[in-house]
């Protein structure tokens, strides 16, 4: 039946790793990811997880080592954040290009510069187009559940997954989390089976070699097809998860979107905050909806269109500094809308950067501004920095 515990987001992902019976872990500590990998190391030390921990000398080597362990046919885990993820960048493409079912915990932290220890999505967004599945959790419970979903999906489609949790607002926040029983997880997540590529003297092959223009496009095409197939696969796996564990998960979660004057679209920990604010406003008679995007890659275009097509306006909150254009989430929503021929105004708000709290007041400001723009039928070509201090202007 499992039990309810009080654990942080970092600890939640570590519990997911333990329950997934990972074989090899390689990681390099970086704030705010550190307690996540410390916890995994602790599980191994206590004998609660039969795995090997490689305390590598850099993030680059962390992802490299798990790529190596993955092609040997073991279930693997690594984790990083911010500049550490940026250092991994080259290997991020290697992991997905080789179709390896690696799961990586991301404790979202802003990229330098300026240096920041704290949350925004600029780190994982910089990796968004390299063919990994990206899941963004909104709570410690989701951090755990997404980790289990990640292994299951990764191993079905042979693609790596980033499970992203906002630095401090999830990594270091303690919450009540329902911890599943090992026996149930074992039913949900079968023992690891090696994929099509492996290093085995009994069946030798060469992996990851040079390719030319004669084959490159086809390999990337199949990679892309596999990634896009997750949009169809996810609901099936989530349904099975719900039947076994009683918790519902979706590519994106909509509340009160039908006919809403404004729908607030979010990624990560601010999703719950937005739901709470919108819920209060609905109770006061205002028509405000929310859409939490959990799966950012592949981007569930159709689901997003279906949820948002009857809204009167959409306010997309990007906790990321995509400088020079729209935030990444807004780009996706606008792109999906255009493809579907929707003419719903989409306003992009950038906020919560470098650890600035995306507070309930900020969410209210986003909604207020979106209503105002809609009322005045105004366009906003570039994002509105919703929580920037006046002195910066």
């Amino acid at each position, binding site marked *: 039946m499992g039990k309810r515990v009080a654990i942080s987001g970092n600890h939640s992902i570590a519990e997911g790793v333990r329950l997934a019976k990972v074989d090899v872990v390689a990681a390099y500590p970086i704030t705010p990811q550190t307690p996540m990998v410390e916890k995994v190391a602790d599980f191994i030390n206590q004998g609660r997880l039969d795995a090997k921990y490689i305390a590598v000398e850099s993030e680059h080597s962390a992802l490299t080592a798990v790529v190596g362990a993955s092609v040997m046919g073991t279930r693997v885990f690594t984790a990083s954040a911010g500049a550490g993820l940026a250092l991994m960048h080259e290997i991020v493409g290697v992991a997905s290009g080789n179709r390896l079912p690696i799961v990586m915990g991301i404790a979202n932290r802003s990229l330098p510069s300026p240096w920041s220890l704290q949350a925004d999505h600029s780190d994982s967004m910089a990796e968004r187009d390299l063919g990994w599945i990206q899941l963004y959790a909104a709570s410690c419970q989701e951090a755990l559940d997404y980790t289990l979903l990640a292994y299951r999906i990764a191993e079905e489609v042979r693609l790596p997954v980033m499970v992203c949790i906002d630095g401090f607002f999830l990594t270091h926040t303690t919450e009540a989390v329902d911890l599943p029983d090992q026996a149930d997880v074992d039913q949900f997540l079968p023992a690891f089976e090696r994929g099509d590529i492996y290093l085995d003297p009994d069946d030798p092959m060469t992996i*990851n070699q040079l*390719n030319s223009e004669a084959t490159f496009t086809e390999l990337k095409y199949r990679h892309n097809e596999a990634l896009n197939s997750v949009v169809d696969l996810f609901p099936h796996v989530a349904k099975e998860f719900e039947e076994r564990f009683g918790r519902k998960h979706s590519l994106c979660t909509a509340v009160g979107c039908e006919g809403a004057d404004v729908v607030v679209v979010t990624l990560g920990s601010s999703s719950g905050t937005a739901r709470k604010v919108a819920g209060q406003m609905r109770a006061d008679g205002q028509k405000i909806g929310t859409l939490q995007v959990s799966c950012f890659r592949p981007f569930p275009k159709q689901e997003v269109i279906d949820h948002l097509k009857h809204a009167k306006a959409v306010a997309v909150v990007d906790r990321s500094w995509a400088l020079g254009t729209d935030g990444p989430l807004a780009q996706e929503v606008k792109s999906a809308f255009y493809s579907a021929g929707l003419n719903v105004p989409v306003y992009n708000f950038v906020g919560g950067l470098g650890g600035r709290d995306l507070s309930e007041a900020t969410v209210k400001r986003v909604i207020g501004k979106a209503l105002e723009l809609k009322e005045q039928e105004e366009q906003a070509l570039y994002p509105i920095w919703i929580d920037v201090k006046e002195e910066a202007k």
Partner: protein
Amino acid sequence: MKHKAGIYAVTITDTKTGAWRLNRPVVSEKCTACGICAKFCPPQIIKIEDRAIIDYEYCKGCGICDSVCPFKAIAMVEEEA
């Protein structure tokens, strides 16, 4: 068609590098079958029987066999165009 997931190669490449050769090593009767040439041949295509036998399908003609032979039993002869 079901494709394998990943980047892999299983076909053993086999370039007939003998075509590159400008000079052909020719083994004479001075060969004692000592095996030194075979030991240092980079593509390892010299077999030692009663004398050294070179696989000209792959020999690039580098001349290492000639250079290491203590008995001067190999001569490099220009290939005809």
